[in-house]
């Protein structure tokens, strides 16, 4: 009989799961698409580089190895101190970006959650607007 790797994975997990009192096998079913996605993702990232390394002709010369074949040489290291205002903008961006991310699932189920859901989100946005008014009036959005 031929047991595939899947079989041994299942046996191993069942044994481990029994120790912890969890049913991994049911859980695993739910995560199978994610596992496939990860495998395909990794393969998609690695395969072209690998193929390129194996198949491409390799004739280096100094011009080809320089950073760019046009434009300037790099002036200095990119690891310099940034203006603190970049961080401020970045933080504000993350804040409002997350708010948008929160709006998507809300929009999907809006029909089911009805007016209560609508007003709950309105309240959430109102609180965010208070914060937005504050940062605007304090000049956090002005560069100079």
């Amino acid at each position, binding site marked *: 009989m031929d047991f595939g790797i899947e079989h041994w994975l299942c046996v191993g997990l069942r044994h481990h799961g029994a*120790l*912890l*009192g*969890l049913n991994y096998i049911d859980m695993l079913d739910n995560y199978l698409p994610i596992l496939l996605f990860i495998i395909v993702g990794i393969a998609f990232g690695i395969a072209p580089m690998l193929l390129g390394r194996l198949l491409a002709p390799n004739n280096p010369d100094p011009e080809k190895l320089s950073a760019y074949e046009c434009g300037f040489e790099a002036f200095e290291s990119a690891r310099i101190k940034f203006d603190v205002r970049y961080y401020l903008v970045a933080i504000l961006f993350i804040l409002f970006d997350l708010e948008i991310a929160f709006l998507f699932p809300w929009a999907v*189920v809006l029909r*089911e*959650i*009805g007016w*209560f*859901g609508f007003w709950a989100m309105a309240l959430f946005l109102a*609180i965010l607007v*208070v*914060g937005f*008014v*504050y940062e605007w*009036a*304090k000049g956090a959005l002005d560069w100079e």
Partner: protein
Amino acid sequence: MNSIMPNLYPASAEIFVLIMACVVLIVDLYCGKKLPGIAFVLTQATLVFGGVIVWLTADAHVALTFSKMFIDDLFGDFMKIAILATMAIAMTYGRSYLDDRGLNKGEFYLLALFATLGMMVIVSANHLLVLYIGLELMSLSLYAMVALRRDDAAASEAAMKYFVLGALASGFLLYGMSMIYGATGTLQIDEIARQLAYHAANKTVLLFGLVFVIAGLAFKVGVVPFHMWVPDVYQGAPTAVTLIVGSAPKLAAFVMAIRLLVGGMFLVNEYWQLALLLMASFSIVLGNLTAIAQRNVKRMLAYSTISHMGFMLLALASGVIDGASVADLRFSVLNAYSAALFYTVTYVLMSLAAFGTLILLSRAGFDAEMLDDLKGLSRRSPWFAAVMLITMFSMAGVPFFVGFFAKFSVLEALIQADRIGVAVFAVLMSLIGAYYYLRVVKLMYFDEPVDSTPLVAPTGLRVMLSVNGVVIALAGIAPNSLMSICALALGYSL
């Protein structure tokens, strides 16, 4: 999907504080220049009216709302009033100090209000994630407050340390919560208790989670081995902020311990009692011994906090007596936990007075924080030296001051739980601790003042500090009323 409107009545105080925090933000933004005191006045009004709302909506009925994630009981109401009152006192003390240092900005009051809101959410949490959100709201506000004096190296260092270690502790807590969820299948605190009682939860996962939750909790309370941040934060933060960090959050952390350990995981008490007992013993040793070596009063009080919180945990760890009947168990549990609550409340009162005195001695361009700054206080101001005397005697546990009764009730709980060895050890350690409290008294009464500038503190601070001292003295004369309030508040929730 069921989405009926939740009952907002039990959360009315929190909603009020949230709305007022937004109002303070906007009002200070547009009227802050013209009316510099507006943020202070509005904040105090919020804290006072918030307390009134909690008082008016308090009843013996336990109300659950927001899909049972939010609980409103008498214990919570008592703690919310205590937190609001503590914050109001701290605001009164801190105002002139902040004014003199150019820190009296709207943001300070705003952060204080959000921290208060976070603490109120912790107090009313019946769900691990609600508890976590409250905790983060409180902690993030406190980190920012510690960093308020941002061009000061010590304050920045303190804030950085507090933030990094605090984030780590939050991570611990969340990880522990996820493990508890894995073991019981629920995040709702009363449901966790039910699952543990009626269903076989996986013990390995549960205890794994419990350890992490206790670690997170210990960090927030500031006990060994999670105490590293306490001295640096106490010393580095502006005194007005140290006052806040060292008072109200202890009350919130106490509720967190009660809700998580007693409310949720009472059935595994044999494990967490042991953990608390160990941390408490180490805290008492380290806190008391290290405080002796300190020359900086804020740092000394930080180590004293560590040992006091250790003492409080001793009471929390001695609720259950081996082999007791159910009726006896109820009595001993209530007795021990109300001793812990009484200890926390009186400790907060004393620490307010101690840091209040430091603010009283400070003035523009001068921070009173070394022991030498307290020298000869009795000659500079006999009355406030007496207030500090009461506070120090009380912290040391000298008989007939309130700290004595607090220590006494903790020791009583320990002896009832048959932990006589631990009780003797705790008494010995508090005897050692008495040295550094009494040293402060000696410096105030028997040494010549190093600096004899007259005190310039404003009337509000003087009146509040006097009231604080009188309350500590009165609580020492008649501790029974406060003790029975503590027992009553807890009795309705256990």
